[in-house]
């Protein structure tokens, strides 16, 4: 049998084999894998129970390599193809050894995660382009989390919610203990033989984002959990762990400006850019809306909007394309004339009329097909719209206001193949491991491809838990 935990309910002090900080996919995979490796495990989740799991709550799929079609995947996705996709989206900003290791391990994750109670389903409606590469969680990310938590609890992993870690005691690259603050049980120091840090990035920490983005960050919306404030990441970097990834970078998409500041999740996104034009608050276009097919270019629009004045933009289209994209949470804002629409958007009507008139005049005839890079394009305006350019002329005229929606940050802790953190001097830590977004920058220097965050979480979570338990046993 597994050893029973030595945690004392009075919360004064205690000793575990493995302490996991964080409560998402990476943290739970680490906790389960450490527990299965024979360790006593405590998970400290900073969020309350409902909000447990960080951004995993908002995910829906995972990208894993596989050599043949499965019940839910339409065809093979080889290690090499995965690697090429990763190379392309990161523009080479990745650690090849680590990335290839992750891709190899991802194959077995398809089965391992099912053994932990997670169930797969074929790609969801509207995501056919991912049917071969990505496995979807039945019921979505929160269902996946629920399954992992049930498994962890059944195995005897202890979990505490609302447990905010306020300090880490680290000496010579060795983790000794964590200070934790809880609303009812109060403060305590918890020591453990190994640490797994799986506490996410810092995208919900607007002050930290402002270091790189200035006041513009006030206009950013955070798509996921408000609990990813990066406090564990900061502590680790301050205490000598080597950093990885560009601190100024974050993954951002254009989401509805009417979305809540935090936690709006997937339903605030817009994939209608290619069907119209995008203008800024001066009613001017600023980028080629027809550059590439969704989802390949999905991720650039957050950064583009972030660079516009007041970090706001408007996707403008007409009534002919309304059913070309998924239904949206917020209805489009409508006007019978361009001027009326401009009024509702508080844009200069004359400027918007001029922009649309110039765009319409520049549209060349072509055969529209949104599934390929078609020949509908503009001529004689800057910026061009190189594909899917059609006149905007059938009222009502419609618009979605959009802002940058921050998904995750790239700054993290450097790790090796064992998910062991490396210290600033390059030496591996004796007992500290990291998994998930907090170390995603090791493989994702920039860019993103759907489902990769969950791959990083599950693969490195499983490895980190296994290695942390191994260390604790020795």
């Amino acid at each position: 049998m597994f050893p029973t935990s030595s945690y004392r309910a009075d919360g004064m002090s205690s000793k575990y084999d493995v302490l996991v900080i964080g409560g998402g996919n990476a943290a739970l995979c680490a906790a389960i894998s450490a527990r299965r490796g024979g360790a006593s495990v405590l998970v400290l989740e900073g969020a309350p129970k409902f909000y447990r799991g960080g951004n995993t709550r908002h995910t829906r799929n995972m990208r894993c390599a596989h050599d043949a079609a499965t019940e839910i995947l339409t065809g093979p996705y080889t290690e090499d193809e995965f690697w090429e996709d990763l190379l392309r989206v990161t523009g080479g900003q990745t650690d090849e050894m680590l990335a290839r290791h992750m891709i190899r391990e991802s194959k077995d994750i398809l089965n391992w995660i099912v053994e932990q109670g997670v169930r797969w389903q074929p790609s969801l409606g509207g995501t056919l382009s991912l049917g071969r590469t990505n496995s979807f969680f039945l019921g979505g990310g929160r269902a996946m989390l629920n399954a992992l938590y049930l498994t962890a609890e059944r195995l005897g992993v202890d979990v505490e919610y609302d447990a905010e870690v306020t300090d880490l005691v680290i000496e010579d690259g060795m983790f000794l203990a964590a200070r934790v603050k809880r609303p009812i049980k109060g403060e305590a120091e918890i020591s453990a033989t190994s640490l797994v840090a799986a506490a996410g990035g810092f995208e919900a920490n607007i002050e930290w984002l402002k270091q790189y983005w200035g006041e513009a960050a006030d206009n950013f919306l955070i798509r996921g959990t408000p609990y990813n404030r990066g406090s564990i990441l900061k502590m680790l970097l301050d205490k000598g762990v080597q950093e990885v990834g560009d601190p100024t970078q974050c993954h951002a998409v254009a989401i509805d400006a009417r979305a809540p500041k935090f936690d709006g999740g997937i339903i605030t996104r817009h994939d209608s850019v290619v069907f119209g034009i995008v203008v800024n608050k001066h009613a001017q276009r600023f980028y080629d809306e027809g550059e590439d097919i969704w989802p390949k270019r999905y991720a650039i629009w957050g950064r583009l909007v972030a660079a516009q004045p007041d970090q706001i933009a408007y996707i403008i289209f007409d009534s002919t394309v309304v059913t070309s994209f998924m239904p949206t949470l917020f209805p489009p804002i409508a006007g019978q004339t361009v001027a009326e629409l401009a009024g509702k958007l508080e844009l200069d009507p004359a400027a918007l009329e001029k922009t649309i008139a110039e765009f319409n005049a520049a549209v060349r005839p072509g055969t529209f097909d949104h599934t390929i890079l078609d020949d509908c394009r503009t001529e004689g305006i800057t910026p061009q719209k190189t594909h899917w350019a059609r006149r905007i002329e059938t009222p009502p005229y419609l618009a979605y206001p959009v802002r940058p929606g921050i998904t995750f940050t790239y700054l993290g802790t450097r790790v090796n193949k064992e998910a062991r953190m490396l210290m600033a001097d390059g030496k591996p830590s004796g007992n500290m491991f990291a998994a998930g977004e907090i170390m995603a920058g090791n493989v994702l220097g920039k860019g993103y491809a759907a489902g990769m965050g969950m791959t990083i979480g599950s693969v490195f979570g499983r490895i980190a838990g296994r290695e942390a338990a191994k260390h604790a046993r020795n």
Partner: protein
Amino acid sequence: MHGTSILDEADRLMTVCNSCRYCEGLCAVFPAMEMRRAFSDGDLNYLANLCHSCGACYVDCQFSPPHEFNVNVPKTLAVARAESYAAYAWPQALSGTFARNGLVISIIAALSMAAFIFGFAALVDHSVLFGAHTGPGAFYKLMPHNAMAALFSAAFLYAILALVMSVRAFWRDIGAPIGGRADGGSILQAIRDAGELRYLHGGGVGCYNEDDKPTDRRKLFHHLTFYGFLLCFAATSVATLYHYPGGREAPYPWWDLPVVLGTLGGIGLIVGPIGLFVAKSRRAPELLDEQRYGMDVGFIAMLFLTGLTGMLLLLLRETAAMGPLLALHLGVVFALFITMPYGKFVHGIYRFTALVRYAQERRSEAGS
């Protein structure tokens, strides 16, 4: 805007869900939703009746309360479903019976039982009423078979008429083409889906009831109740065949088909409703339509009493208690019949109809 505030809320939720779709694999509601971009009253009543209240989409939803989007599909659709029963009730004058349904059902049941007891007492000689009877025709010493058959057939035929009229209104409202008929394939599919409670399974793990741990208990108890009911109905049908074309009169020996069917069914109708009641009383309040507690429990109680009085009648049919028990049993069954179109019984009929429509939609989507 819709006719009622619950339909407005259902519309809001379906708009949220349609832009998310994570729950698509859990049941029939979400794929049916995805076939639409806007929702009429009929669409929402259709989705509400497709929902089996397994609770999985609530537990799996990243936007369920306390999230500000406040997405609670099972509860909202439960309320909408109950309101749809009243909206389609025939005749409309009786739609009010759904408002305080537990009370209505109790009063009718009590009156019905009292009527049989007093009826027997008034019409049947005391020595016969409290005497022990055995052998063929024993029951009919208390109430002539023809009278019994006529009374219950009338009640049953009325129930069928009212149900047919209600379902017709529902069928027209949920988008079936005017005069459109259900095809055989879709009906077969719906029989399979309803028969195995395909969508009361949380997408495979089981349904949620008191906490976030899935179980299959409600499915099991519903099966016991439903198949118990069917077995009892089959027992009555076989007995009727024995009686009229066969000329053999009840009571039948314990090994004979009507008694075997009735006994098995009776056990199901006792155990099943108890299990469903316990599950109902433990159900997490956030998943429950508290307003309809009386309706749900009233129906469960009626089925339980049907099973219980039937089984007691079987066990004690050769004693002096037979007469009063027969009166009680007939009273309960009569009340069950006449309240069928105006209580929780209709959930099965509407849900089945919605499943037929769903099977049809799936077929036409696959064909297009």
